[in-house]
């Protein structure tokens, strides 16, 4: 059996330049009632005061279970959902304050790869039109140039350039995801938000797409905000990892640090819940099985969001929301008991 080369050098960004800085980001979705006169009766607290930085050239993994607000965070960063409050600084400029043409120009620099490769490509457009459209919209190329650029991009993501005249339905899930990657690359962005780009794909295909994303990152010095629920894959691809629970980041640390030394009880439970593809290791493992389920984000628990399921919860956890603080260099955690 050939085991792939073990490269012990972790992927670290070349410099420590901050590309994206998110400060106290909040996104509430209003819940409206009434037919003629609409009244707001509550709000889904999808993202509730989170802060993080993304360095140029790194991959920040954003991980959590369904409904924890990780996709909302990704979309709020790109201003696809306008945040309720907070700052999103991209190269030092606040996107939240921008609108119209100014924001549209910034959008060139930040792109997105979506989860569902079947829903995210227009079935009535050819692959060439899909990949070339951003170039036309931003007026970066015309006519023959677009065609040439599309061919280059297709080659770049490992597809045959002659596929440009075909339609999305002629491709498999993995190939469609490659088309989505080519579209995201067409404007030569600095930041790509990858929203669960591999979770709809089969196991043997996932590795193909992940390897492609890694190669492109290296070749074009791309920065990824990588959203996923698969903790093994997040560990593989990320430089640093942020763990979300019910709208807040509970822990953020360097990849190796987080997996070797998780501090937040939720991170610990989450890591212990992941089954390992190794029967010998599985026999020895102790699982922390969390009781109950994620509470509703409409009416989240007071104090610490995790306290209702936390095996260690103390009285203070119900009263005070724990501060998200740095407990070791680069290791942030929001827990009273750490």
């Amino acid at each position, binding site marked *: 059996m050939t085991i792939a080369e073990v490269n012990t050098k972790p992927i670290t960004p070349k410099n420590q330049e901050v590309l994206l800085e998110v400060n106290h980001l909040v996104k509430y979705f209003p819940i409206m009632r009434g037919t003629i006169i609409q009244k707001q009766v509550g709000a889904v607290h999808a993202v509730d005061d989170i802060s993080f930085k993304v360095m140029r050239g790194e991959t920040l993994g954003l991980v959590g279970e369904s409904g924890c607000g990780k996709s909302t965070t990704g979309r709020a960063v790109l201003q696809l959902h306008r945040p309720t409050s907070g700052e999103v600084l991209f190269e030092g400029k606040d996107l939240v304050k921008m609108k119209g043409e100014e924001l549209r120009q910034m959008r060139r620099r930040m792109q997105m790869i979506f989860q569902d490769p079947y829903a995210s490509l227009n079935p009535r457009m050819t692959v060439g039109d899909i990949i070339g459209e951003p170039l036309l919209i931003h007026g970066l190329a015309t006519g023959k140039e677009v065609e040439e650029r599309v061919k280059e991009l297709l080659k770049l993501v490992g597809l045959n350039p002659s596929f440009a005249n075909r339609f999305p339905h002629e491709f498999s899930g993995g190939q469609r995801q490659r088309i989505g990657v080519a579209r995201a690359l067409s404007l030569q962005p600095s930041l790509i938000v990858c929203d669960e780009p591999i979770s709809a794909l*089969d*196991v043997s295909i996932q590795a193909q797409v992940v*390897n492609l994303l890694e190669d492109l990152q290296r070749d074009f010095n791309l920065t990824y905000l990588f959203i996923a*629920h698969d903790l093994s894959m997040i560990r593989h691809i990320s430089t640093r990892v942020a763990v979300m629970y019910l709208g807040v980041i509970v822990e953020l640390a360097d990849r190796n640090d987080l997996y070797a030394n998780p501090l937040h009880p939720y991170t610990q439970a989450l890591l212990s819940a*992941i089954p390992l*593809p190794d029967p*010998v290791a599985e026999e020895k493992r102790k699982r922390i099985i*969390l009781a109950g*389920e994620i509470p509703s984000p409409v009416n989240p628990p007071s104090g610490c969001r995790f306290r209702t399921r936390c095996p260690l919860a103390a009285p203070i956890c119900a009263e005070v929301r724990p501060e998200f603080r740095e407990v070791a260099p680069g290791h942030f955690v929001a827990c009273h008991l750490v």
Partner: protein
Amino acid sequence: MADLLNVEGLETQFYTQDGIVHAVNGVSFKLKEGETLGVVGESGCGKSVTMMSMLRLIPSPPGKVVAGRAMYQGKDLLKISDEDIRNIRGSQISVIFQDPMTSFNPVLTIGRQVAEPLEIHHGMSQKEAYRRVAEMLTMVGIPNAKERLNDYPHQFSGGMRQRAMIAMALVCSPQILIADEPTTALDVTIQAQIVDLVKRLANELGMSMIWITHDLGIIAGLAHRVAVMYAGYIIETAAVKPLYAQPEHPYTIGLLNSLPRMDESGYRRLTSIEGIPPILYEKPNYCPFAPRCRFVRERCWQENPPLLEVGPEHYAACWVNPRTGGYRE
């Protein structure tokens, strides 16, 4: 241990507009008493179709079981009368399906649906059945089970619905439980709860299990024996430890290498399997994995390999020894 179930040469085809799809192409396996068999494969490999064929749950048309036997208690499940198979399904062989939302009838209460097998198979009165259902729901970890009997499926969360599904499958104390990707739609912390629950219940009730999944991680901690499927064939089968420690089929090797390992230190580039799984419109006279295989040799294109014994109780359908790259002896 005695064989509880013995499936031989099962073949299922689907008649579609594009031609005949060969979904299952001569699958044979055995299930022993008290054993958990893991069936692993990617979407479309025929893992669910195999089990549904055995239970005669394949809609026909378009599907048809064209060959094979499935011996259970001295009878062939594929040949017995419709009434006999109905009596076996639900009371002796139960299934948990993947999607807990669509597997329940949305207009009937949970209590009504979980009690149904008891009333049908055991002739219990509704009152008796409901009492038993409440016990069962408590056992699978649903709080205030008695009050929740009159809830409808939409009032349960995903994890709770899957628990109710398990209760429904176990309520008649079946001998065999077939779990068809029961945790795929769930979050990891809920998945851990469900896997833990089913494992414990199977142990307590002395049940045999067939667990179908695409997740090699779940199987590692759960199964005694594993069968890996590809393109409608079992391409490798062995006890769980040898299969992970020394996989013999290039596809199994490829799958294991393409997974990132959380417990690894450092960074390793993932080895992907190039290409995509085939849809078989005719039975291949070559190895169905050959187009994607890194070890492919001439013979692989000439003859589809049968399962060869490559170690004690370890079978792989491959002409090539992946450690040497040469043909097997």
